[in-house]
């Protein structure tokens, strides 16, 4: 009776003890030393492994921070709060970067843009753009087939009812994955506070733009002339804003004849 109870306990317990001490000894002998701070850094990071920092996942970035190869502000997703935490762990001061968001620079939805043909292929912008630059008359416009929506790890992009992609400013972390994924290079990372953007990327001449889209930039240079701050320039048939110089006065957006310049009038401060 006693034997039937004791034997299993002893044998299993013995095996466990053997394995346990074996593993403990092995870890002492061949275990790899890790910096205890590395775990702290990993804890502080968002842990979504988006790769926006340029390292393979959050653990890769943590290792680089510990090794001193990456700045504590290197995580664009975590922003200022994570940078501060990492700074505390590493004993460094962290400069706070301004929050940024992604923006789809095209307003050529189904009301504004002209279609060239009906596309019934693979539901993917990259595939569609291989067929004569996509189904839109404008070769630069958003195709609305949601390639950016699928790659976004934060669920921050959606396709509007009118068929173009738009970024949810509150969810967006400016990780930049959609920027790389868009075959039309339509998405840009802009300062969160910026209220004025040129929502067009067409490098076509005015005549072609007019034919293809109601809200395209026709490079008339009116914006350039009305800007008091030298912040908007027309080059290669397209206006572009220097966000460092722009003060969001919105004069260019008011004067733009095709309304290719978008301004968030609701949040205007001037």
């Amino acid at each position: 009776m006693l034997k039937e109870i004791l034997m299993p306990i002893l044998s299993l317990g013995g095996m466990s003890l053997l394995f346990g001490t074996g593993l403990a000894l092995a870890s002492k002998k061949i275990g790899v030393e890790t910096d205890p701070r590395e775990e702290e850094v990993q804890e502080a990071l968002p842990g979504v492994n988006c790769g926006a920092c340029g390292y393979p996942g959050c653990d890769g970035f943590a290792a680089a921070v510990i090794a001193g190869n990456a700045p504590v502000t290197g995580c664009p997703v975590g922003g200022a709060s994570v940078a501060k935490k990492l700074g505390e762990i590493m004993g460094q001061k962290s400069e706070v970067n301004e929050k940024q968001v992604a923006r789809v620079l095209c307003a050529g939805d189904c009301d504004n843009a002209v279609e060239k043909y009906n596309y019934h292929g693979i539901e993917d912008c990259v595939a569609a753009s291989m067929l004569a630059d996509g189904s839109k008359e404008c070769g630069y416009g958003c195709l609305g087939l949601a390639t950016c929506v699928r790659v976004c790890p934060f669920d921050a992009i959606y396709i509007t009812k009118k068929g173009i992609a738009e970024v949810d400013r509150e969810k967006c972390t400016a990780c930049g994955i959609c920027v790389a994924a868009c075959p039309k290079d339509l998405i840009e990372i802009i300062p969160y506070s910026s209220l004025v953007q040129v929502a067009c990327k067409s490098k076509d001449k005015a005549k072609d733009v007019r034919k293809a889209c109601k809200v395209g930039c026709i490079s008339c240079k009116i914006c350039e002339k009305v800007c008091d701050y030298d912040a908007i320039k027309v080059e290669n048939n397209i206006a572009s804003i220097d966000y460092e110089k722009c003060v969001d006065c919105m004069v260019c957006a008011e004067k733009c004849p095709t309304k290719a310049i978008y301004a968030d009038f609701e949040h205007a401060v001037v």
Partner: protein
Amino acid sequence: MEYAGKLFMILLSTLLVNNFVLSRFLGICPFLGVSKKVSTALGMGAAVTFVMALASLFTYIIQYTILDTLGLEYLQTIAFILVIAALVQFVEMVIQKMSPTLYQALGVYLPLITTNCAVLGVAIINIQEKYDLLQTLINGTGAALGFTLAIVLMAGIRERLELSDIPEPLKGFPITLITAGLMSVAFLGFQGLIK
């Protein structure tokens, strides 16, 4: 010669006819969880192969030196889990020391193998079929290769499914389950290979 023939039969049987994933339905979790990309599927397969071969060896030793001699066969399951868990921990340590690159590539899959029922399954089947040491090793390796084959095939199909036009309600997991079912039916075709 007859013995070599038997070994070959064991290998063929465990690889194709009684494929662990598609015929015995063991190790379904990683089969569905880690089969989105061919590269990660291959990594998982390699890790499982390594652990399964070693686990077969060690459980064989434990069974015949400790459990059988002490008459504790009923402790088989719990003892085997103990062995496998310790083994995976040890393998993880060795790989981390020897090749940090491989360690990084395998990542979280390595500790996950501890709870892969295919590993426990192969250890128990080895004992049930009363295989000797060489047959045990062949069976363990063959089963793991069969697992790798199934998961890589699945990953290849899923990579293509990503770009296919699938009816809305079937998108994502449902179509994956249907695919797995069809693959299993296809593997049933190997049934006639061995009597």
